[in-house]
Every structure is written in structure tokens, then in C-alpha cells.
């Protein structure tokens, strides 16, 4: 069990057959996550292949997480929240300037966490792709309008992912304070990795 502080990054290896469990301790906390095949990090989680394979945008129990090479790399084996986002991507200094104005540029952001934590594993900007947002609620209206709205998560809810191959997980406990994805108040989460 590792408590990841509000706004902080985390990374770690998950053995094939092992699990990664993420628990939303304070409620309504988005957790941005990227997965890489441990022995070839150019093969990585692909949001698009995952959504196309299950013909649905929401991730939940039973969802098979696919790689950019079309391989099943992980499975969501438990989910007490109900659904998670993978179209909204990660907040960055640069996208914050567009969404909230240039005065927010120096606020902390998920891409900063990914770059800092990824650098410890020789991962850089080119390795960042569309990610999973655990516990984040992004509904789509019939006309294509997207919302980032109040979460459906609450304290103690958790999601468990089983690795089908050895994986490296890169996580940002989202520091965004300008929209409801964290209830305007980032809080800690628990991350537990288990061996097979």
C-alpha cells in the first residue's frame, strides 16, 4: 500500500498476472494513468484500440486494455466506481493556457508529472499518448458535446487492473483545480501492486 499524495506522480512495475489497485481515498479524484509493456515501452496502452475493441468509450469491469500493437495487455477485474474515462487525456501547462487562460500556465499539471516520473524510466514527450482517467466522468451528448462533470466516485471506491504481460505504470494523481474532475480539491489516492 502506497499513499500517493495529492498532485503527486507514481510509477512502478506490475508483473504478468499481477494486479494494480487504485483506491480513491477522498472521493472525486481523477487519476491519470499510462501503461507500457515493460520489456518494450514502445508498445503501450492505446485508448483508441481499447475503445474500438469493446465498441464503447467507457472503461469498467471486464474491459480489456489494448496496446497500440493490438494486443490485450491488461484487464479491469474489479471496479466499484462504475466507469472511467479515456477520451479526456491529461491536463498540461499548455492545454491549461487554452482552457483557463495564460495566467494558469505555471500551475501543476498531469503532463508535468508524467514527464518527471517518466524520465526515471527513459520515457519522454514522445512516449506520452492518450491516457486513462480513473474515476473521471466525461459524458458525451448526442451532438458530440463533451463534458467534464462532477465525478461519480466517492471515498473508498476502487479499480483493480490485472496485467496480462509485465507492465510499467505511470500515474499522475491529477492536480487540476480549474474544473470539477477533482472536485476543485485534489486529494490522495492509494496504490497497491500485488504479485500474481
Amino acid at each position, binding site marked *: 500500500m502506497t499513499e500517493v499524495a495529492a498532485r503527486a506522480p507514481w510509477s512502478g512495475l506490475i508483473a504478468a498476472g499481477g494486479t494494480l489497485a487504485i483506491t480513491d481515498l477522498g472521493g472525486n479524484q481523477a487519476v491519470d494513468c499510462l501503461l507500457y509493456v515493460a520489456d518494450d515501452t514502445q508498445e503501450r496502452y492505446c485508448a*483508441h484500440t481499447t475503445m*474500438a475493441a469493446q*465498441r464503447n468509450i467507457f472503461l469498467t469491469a471486464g474491459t480489456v486494455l489494448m496496446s497500440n*500493437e493490438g494486443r490485450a495487455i491488461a484487464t479491469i477485474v474489479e471496479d466499484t466506481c462504475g466507469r472511467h474515462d479515456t*477520451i479526456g*487525456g491529461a491536463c498540461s501547462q499548455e492545454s491549461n493556457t487554452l482552457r483557463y487562460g495564460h495566467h494558469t500556465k505555471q500551475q501543476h499539471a498531469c503532463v508535468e508529472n508524467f514527464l518527471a516520473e517518466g524520465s526515471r524510466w527513459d520515457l519522454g514527450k514522445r512516449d506520452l499518448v*492518450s491516457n486513462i482517467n480513473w474515476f473521471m466522468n466525461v459524458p458525451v451528448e448526442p451532438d458530440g458535446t*463533451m463534458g*467534464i462533470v462532477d465525478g461519480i466516485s466517492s471515498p473508498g471506491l476502487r479499480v483493480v487492473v490485472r496485467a496480462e504481460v509485465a507492465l510499467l505504470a505511470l500515474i499522475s494523481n491529477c492536480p487540476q483545480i480549474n474544473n470539477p474532475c477533482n472536485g476543485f480539491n485534489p486529494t490522495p489516492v492509494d496504490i497497491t501492486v500485488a504479485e500474481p
Partner: protein
Amino acid sequence: LWEETLEDGQYAIHRLGRGTVVRLEDVGAEACAHVMVHHADLPSERLNLADTTKVQWQLYPTTGSVLLSDRGRVLMTIVGDTSGRHDTICGAPTATGRPRLILALAKVGLDRRDLAPSISFFKGVRVGRDGALELDTTGGGNVELRAELDVYFSVVNVAHCLDGRYPVCTPLRITARPGEPTAADDPRRLATPEIERAFLNTDDWAGCGR
């Protein structure tokens, strides 16, 4: 400038200067153009579909939509669209689209690490309230995209991954013409505060780099 027709399974990559307008035409109603865009001056900067859709609050791009990079800049603007059926969710098929996009990128010294989720034109993916995906296979029409920075424009013509009819793609016609980047007083640029700030970031790069 650039004239090429892609048959089923063919790909191309071209450098487009700032202001250039590229036109994609689905002449036989069964083309599907999977497109990736990189900033030619700084290839680690590329199309970011999550930011593109999130910042514009819209999953279905059409005329007036911008394609945003991961650095908050406008790579391209959609300046014409007679199709209205496109896809920002499924990406290029891993078996047919991805290997060809990797070949395209290899021609300019990039590799599979540089391939992020791509956009697809002429086959429409729509999302139901329950999150389920539906594919609209009505084809035909054309799309025009203006480069707002110098870009590498990669495209492959293969069937959409949700298309259960497994069609052989009809030809995709590509033509490019010279032009100017979106002007400071263009209403499209001022459409929303988010798009206006994206163009300011784009001007900042183009101006400082001169």
C-alpha cells in the same frame, strides 16, 4: 503543389508549409483517410486528439474545428467539410493502418514512438448515451485542412476498424494549394476564447522562430 491518389492500402507523407491547404476527396464513397500530423520544426510535437476534442468540447470535428498539438498550438484548421462524418475515437486499425503510418513516419526519420492516436475522415463514429459506438458508413465528399505551422502530414487509405463490411477502399484524391495561415481577424479564429488562445500560442512560435 501536391497531387496524389491513394488506392486501398496506400499511404503518403508530405511536408506542408504554414498556410498550405490540403484537400482530401472521397471520390468513390468508400475511402477512409487516417491522418497523423507532426510539427515539422519540432516533431515531438504532434496531433493530440484528447486536447483537440476536450478544448473544443466537441468529439465530432467539422468546418471551423482546429487540430491541436500537445503544446497548445493549432497544427491545422478544417476550412471545408462536405462529409461531416469523421472519427476521433477509434484511430487507425492496428493491423492495416498503423504499420503504414509507421512507414510514412520513417520517411522523415520518425519511428513508432512518434505515432500517437490518429484522426480518420469519411467514416463517422458516433457515441450513444451509454458510451456505445456506432459507425456511419455513408461515404463521399471532401475535407480541406489548412496548415497553421509547417507540418508533416501523414495519411493512409484503409477501411475503418469498425466497418464490418470489410470494404476495399475506393481512391482517396489528395491535392494541395498554397495559401496563408488563418488571419488575425478571421471569425473562425475568434470563435471561442480557447481557439483564440491556441492561435496566440501558434503565432508566438511562428513569430519567435522567424
